[in-house]
């Protein structure tokens, strides 16, 4: 057996046998399920009904306000404003809407007031504004002797139907699904890099503090040890993901059985669509999801996953070699976490608005962010040459970084008691 595979085996077994690995593997799905249940439970709880007093001196608007499960509107047009604001202060009313007596629409536009103790939400303000504006518009139209019904009929509301130039049709809302899928993959990569990169670092530090490193290094090349460590740790991580996937599927399956829903194969579900047209909307989304570049996404996920994880793990390994304890490593963490977080932010804010804009495109080539940003772009359709170029850059950088990391690693693992700085590490590169 070659030494690298021996190292991989040992690292893998050491990680998997670790109590925290076992606990994490089986406990975190439980914690996840628990949180999901909690959120579900909280969202089903009814929020308190808030009472809003309407003081409408014109009497035109008050009937437009319809109470719902969240807000109850109470007509208080006869109560003086002073009394109402007092009861807002005492907390009886959430707020009071004051519409002054005027027949001049221009005056009303500026002089309707809302009093409350806590600032109202933006959505609430917009709703009220829309309500009053609609009503006022209707009055204005009637005053101008215009046929509101005819106008309403004449109104046109365009809903863009989105399609790709290649002719495939698309449904609205698909963008959200796309960013969801890309985001999930990108996020997964980020989490994996942070969790397992840290594990690589800790394992390097452990060998240093145990002082076994010099024994090992007299039979294994530092580079072999580093690569073996990275691969072994990633295998442990993949096993963890596989177990989670299995648990997830088991839960899904048993839930399906419990609720008496037969898990449908794609074939029968297509047949079912034909018979049950009321499902067509959900079905449409599903078929649209299947039309996404799934093969490309999965292959790209795998490649970016490997490239990104290896790239960052090399950083982590080098840092682990340079420090004596985990506390010393903090100062080196920020430059690693930053590009990862940047990638996720670019993904969620830039890619969703403009998947093929300059910023999104550039960062999907930058190797430190490309695993996340490019994965988020791929569901929107990225030319294959861009993916190929981005992956090439990523792997080229990876080999470069591994070379540097191995140098720092080689020197660092045999250095004790020196508090490392960036300057020191650069010096090691020259040894």
């Amino acid at each position, binding site marked *: 057996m070659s030494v690298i595979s021996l190292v991989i085996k040992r690292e893998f077994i050491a990680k998997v046998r670790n109590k925290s690995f076992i606990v994490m593997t089986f406990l975190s799905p439980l914690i996840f399920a628990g949180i999901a249940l909690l959120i579900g439970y909280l969202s089903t709880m009814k929020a308190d009904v808030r009472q809003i007093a309407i003081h409408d001196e014109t009497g035109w608007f008050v009937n437009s306000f319809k109470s719902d499960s969240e807000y109850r509107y109470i007509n208080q047009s006869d109560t003086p404003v002073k009394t109402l604001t007092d009861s807002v202060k005492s907390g009886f009313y959430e707020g009071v809407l004051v519409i002054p007596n005027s027949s001049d629409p221009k005056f009303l536009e500026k002089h309707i007031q809302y009093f409350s103790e806590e600032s109202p939400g933006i959505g609430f303000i917009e709703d009220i504004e829309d309500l009053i504006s609609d009503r006022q518009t209707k009055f204005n139209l009637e005053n101008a002797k215009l046929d509101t019904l005819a106008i309403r009929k004449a109104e046109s509301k365009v809903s863009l139907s989105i399609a790709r130039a290649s002719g495939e049709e698309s449904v609205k809302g698909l963008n959200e699904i796309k960013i969801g899928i890309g985001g999930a993959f990108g996020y997964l990569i980020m989490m994996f890099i942070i969790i397992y990169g840290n594990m690589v670092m800790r394992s390097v530090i*452990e060998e240093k503090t145990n002082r*076994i490193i*010099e024994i*090992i290094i*007299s039979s294994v*090349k530092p580079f072999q040890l580093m690569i073996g460590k990275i691969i072994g740790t990633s295998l442990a991580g993949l096993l963890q993901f596989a177990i989670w996937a299995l648990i997830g599927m088991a839960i899904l399956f048993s839930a399906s059985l419990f609720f008496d829903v037969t898990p449908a194969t794609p074939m029968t579900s297509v047949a079912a669509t034909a018979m049950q047209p009321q499902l067509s909307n959900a079905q449409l989304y599903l078929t649209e999801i299947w039309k996404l570049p799934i093969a490309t996404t999965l292959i790209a996920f795998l490649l970016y996953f490997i490239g990104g994880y290896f790239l960052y793990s090399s950083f982590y390994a080098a840092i682990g070699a340079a420090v004596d304890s985990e506390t010393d490593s903090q100062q080196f963490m920020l430059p690693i976490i930053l590009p990862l977080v940047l990638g996720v932010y670019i993904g969620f804010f830039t890619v969703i608005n403009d998947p093929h804009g300059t910023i999104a495109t550039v960062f999907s080539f930058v190797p430190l962010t490309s695993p996340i940003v490019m994965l988020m772009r791929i569901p929107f359709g990225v030319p294959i040459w861009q993916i190929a170029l981005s992956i090439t850059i990523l792997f080229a950088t990876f080999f470069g970084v591994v070379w540097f990391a191995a140098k720092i690693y080689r020197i660092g693992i045999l250095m004790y008691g020196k508090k490392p700085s960036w300057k020191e590490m650069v010096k090691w590169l020259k040894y």
Partner: protein
Amino acid sequence: MSNILEVRDVVKKYGDFTALNSVSLSVPKGSIYGLLGPNGAGKTSLIRIINQITYPDSGQVLLDGKPLSPDHIRDIGYLPEERGLYKSMKVGEQCLYLAQLKGLSHSEAKKQLEFWFDKLDINGWWNKKIQELSKGMAQKIQFVVTVLHKPKLLIFDEPFSGFDPVNANIIKDEILELKKNGATIIFSTHRMESVEELCDDIALIHKSNKLIEGKLNDVKRNHRTNNYEVGILTDNVEGLMYDLTQKFMISQADFKSLNDELKLSIQIGETRPNDLLSVLTHRGQVTHFVEKIPSVNDIFINAVSGPTNE
């Protein structure tokens, strides 16, 4: 080909600091070779180069006449000064892993391990974790791991640190047995008494330079002071002293003895020991006559503080 290891003009620099300044060594096959030097002299740098952990900036290292190559890793057993084991790994698994890294097959490693565990009487430790063992016990395991793959060349860096006297003796006997079985041992230490006892050859490194190298006896011969310790029972002390001062330099000596004799330290210079003896026998009963051979410790301190005392 009598040298198992040849170090030729090895230079190693770390930045501006020169750790080894053109150092050459020859380690004869089958010897116990003491590599001596104060802390920071460059011993560990040299050992790391021999183990191919680092590489020399210039110069060459030959093992069995061939330049060092990755294949030589399994010919060398190395017990570093900074040593430890995986704390949370079981003893048996750990030893198997380290032995396999040295190129043994799983079954061969297991066979060797059982042999050594039997020999050192540590059979019950197989399933224990290192963190359950004492420091001395862990050192025994490290020793086993070092010798397990039957290397031609063994390098021990301060092997006895951390051992109690009983265990240190066991290890010492094992080292001697390894030598008997044909292994060559490089022994880096500043414990001079163990050097006197074990080493056939020594080399002294100081401030990145090799100062002395050779057979232990040759080195001592080169550093002899021609001083003799003498015990003599005589009635005529004054006569004796008169005779002696004619030819030799005399000073008071102190050594343990059964009689209440006159104890002298005599510098014979270029004359022969027999000249001294004839003077002594002429005047009294000689009870003690020993050449004061310089200890390695003396040579070490002399060499380190002497010529390079700029």
